[in-house]
């Protein structure tokens, strides 16, 4: 049994040994790291990461490697060896390392700037701007970037964009104050660019620029505001000239708001705008577009408060609308009466409507009602009247001439006249009218067909036709 217990003990020992052997390279790396041998630790951890199949410890090893790099960087940083330190901090690739990496890059950039190596300096500064945004050096970095953009790139737009960032995020800083001095030096150039766009009538583009500059004005607030006012005024005048009135008032108000010196000119233009709206309303009223006419008049009230002309015009338009509505109602009544063959009543209704709204359509209805009144009351007399009135009375005039000639040539007893005779035809509302003159050498047997509904007069024989033609 003693031997067996001994075997048992050996087995436990072997087991414990094997247990301690799990993840040996990792444990070794950790041990080296704890001993402060950072370079060696990095090598061990690199090797472990390369070969390990344990996913969890592999990731932990990466973190430990980052710590080792950070410590290596810190050692270099302490002796102001910024370039080597930056390489280690970069390889550490952690937020903690970033807090010193930005300092290293900034120092390297400063040296490059001192050596007038702008490209190199900008590379490092750009890295800080775009990849180390939480850097406490950011205001100085942005300022340095502005210096490069001005002195090396000669790009005032890029410098201005950088200045915007500086102002948005780091306004209360010394770097911002210094940058403002630089921006002031090229601000007139930027304003001049807006001026060029204004001159080319690119108003919206010019205003975009100016408003941008207004947000980041450096020391040119008054100049920029005045120019914004002027651009708005010019734009409004241009639109007024082209009769594109929708935005004119707004732009004029803006113009005065940004440049109070334009107050008198703006007032003049507002009055002009109001008069255009009044004229436009009058035209719409003529076109019987009453709603839009009133709307046009009302727009002037937005421009000039208590503008009496507009009130009068609106009242007139409303009265016009009322009369039109009343006429329409009367026409409706007249139509109903007409449909019921009450032609006289219809005629009266149409005539009344015409007093309210004198339009040709109602006039035509009056004529129609009159025609049918005559057709229904005394068609025969109406038929004779049509013939007599035909072509401005050409028929009675011709007959009179004929009779006069006959009386000159013959005695009274030789001439026999049978005046206007009316005969109903087979066609509804059509009548035959006859007029007969008999003289010794000729008989004039004149006949016409009259259609009462249309007022049409048709000669029925050659004699009649010839007589009228002559």
């Amino acid at each position, binding site marked *: 049994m003693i031997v*067996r217990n001994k*075997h*048992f003990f050996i*087995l*436990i020992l*072997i*087991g414990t040994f*094997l*247990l301690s052997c*799990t993840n040996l390279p990792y444990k070794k790396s950790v041990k080296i790291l704890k001993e402060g041998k950072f370079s060696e630790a990095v090598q061990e951890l690199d090797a472990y990461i390369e070969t390990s199949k*344990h*996913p*969890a410890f592999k*990731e*932990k090893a*990466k*973190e430990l490697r*980052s710590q080792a790099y950070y410590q290596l960087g810190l050692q270099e940083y302490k002796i102001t060896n910024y370039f080597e330190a930056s*390489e280690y901090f*970069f*390889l550490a*690739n*952690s937020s903690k390392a970033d807090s010193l990496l930005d300092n290293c*890059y900034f120092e390297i950039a400063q040296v490059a700037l001192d050596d007038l190596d*702008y*490209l190199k300096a*900008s*590379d*490092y500064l*750009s*890295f800080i*701007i*775009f*990849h180390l*945004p*939480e850097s406490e050096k950011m205001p100085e970095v942005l300022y340095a970037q502005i210096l490069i*953009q001005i002195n*090396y*790139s*000669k*790009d005032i*737009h*890029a410098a201005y*964009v*950088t200045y*915007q*960032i500086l102002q*948005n*995020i780091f306004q209360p800083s010394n770097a911002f104050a210094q940058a403002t001095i630089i921006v002031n030096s090229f601000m007139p150039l930027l304003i001049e660019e807006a001026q060029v766009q204004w001159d080319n009538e690119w108003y919206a583009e010019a205003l975009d620029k100016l408003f941008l500059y207004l947000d980041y004005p450096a020391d040119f607030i008054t100049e920029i505001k005045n120019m914004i006012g002027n651009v708005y005024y010019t734009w409004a005048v241009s639109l007024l000239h082209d009769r594109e009135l929708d935005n004119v008032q707004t732009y004029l108000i803006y113009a005065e708001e940004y440049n109070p010196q334009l107050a008198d000119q703006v007032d003049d233009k507002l009055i002009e705008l109001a008069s255009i709206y009044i004229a436009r309303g009058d035209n719409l009223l003529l076109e019987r577009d009453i709603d839009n006419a009133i709307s046009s008049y009302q727009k002037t009230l937005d421009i000039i408060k208590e503008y009496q002309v507009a009130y009068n015009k609106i009242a007139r338009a409303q009265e016009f609308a009322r009369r039109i509505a009343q006429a329409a109602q009367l026409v409706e009544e007249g139509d109903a009466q007409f449909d019921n063959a009450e032609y006289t009543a219809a005629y009266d209704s149409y005539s009344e409507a015409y007093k309210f709204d004198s339009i040709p359509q109602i006039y035509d209805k009056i004529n129609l009602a009159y025609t049918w009144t005559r057709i229904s009351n005394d068609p025969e007399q109406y038929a004779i009247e049509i013939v007599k009135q035909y072509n401005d009375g050409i028929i009675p005039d011709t007959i009179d001439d004929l009779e006069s000639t006959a009386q000159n040539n013959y005695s009274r007893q030789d001439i026999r006249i049978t005046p206007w005779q009316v005969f109903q035809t087979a066609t509804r509302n059509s009548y035959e009218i006859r007029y007969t003159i008999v003289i010794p050498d000729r008989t004039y047997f004149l006949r016409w067909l009259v259609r009462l509904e249309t007022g049409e007069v048709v000669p029925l024989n050659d004699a009649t036709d010839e007589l009228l033609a002559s």
Partner: protein
Amino acid sequence: MKKILFIIILFALSLPLHAKEPGGFDSDAILQKNIKYGWDNATNWENSRKDLQENMAVFKQWDNKKQSHLTNCLKSMIAPGWGHFSTGNYLKGEILLGLQVLLAGSAYYFYNQSQDYYDKYKNAHQIDEINQYYIDANSSYRTSGILVGLWIIVWGYTVLDTIQSTENYNRNLWFTLYDEYMNGKISVTAQGIQIRF
């Protein structure tokens, strides 16, 4: 919030900032001098950090949930198969437990048998019986010893295999937690796929 605002502004303004620089400033240029781990551009560098941060979040969970090799080995020493059961390796645990119970039971059986033969051997009076009981007692005792030896081997194997079983458990735990973490970042909704950063 300030950081987000800053990044947004930087992003919005980055194009004109670069486009207008005649020198073609490139923040990645400085990385070309020091390529390691594939970080030849800032995107790779930042992605690598992001990955590590995510993996460390998983590692933290894993570290809390992982099983100890020592604890599981002690379990297997005390009760054969317990360590395997702890790691979810039930089949192997049952087989090893069954085998050990069988071997221990058999050893005990043969040991009792040998004791019986030995008692009979001591009480026997005939020379043939004495010889036979002696042979039988010895035989049973040897069988019992062999079975004890086998039991010890299986027990030892069980304890040692618990290490590998625990290792496998921990490895699988990592992958499970990693998948859960990544799936937690991506959710499919009626509005579409959302990725949480």
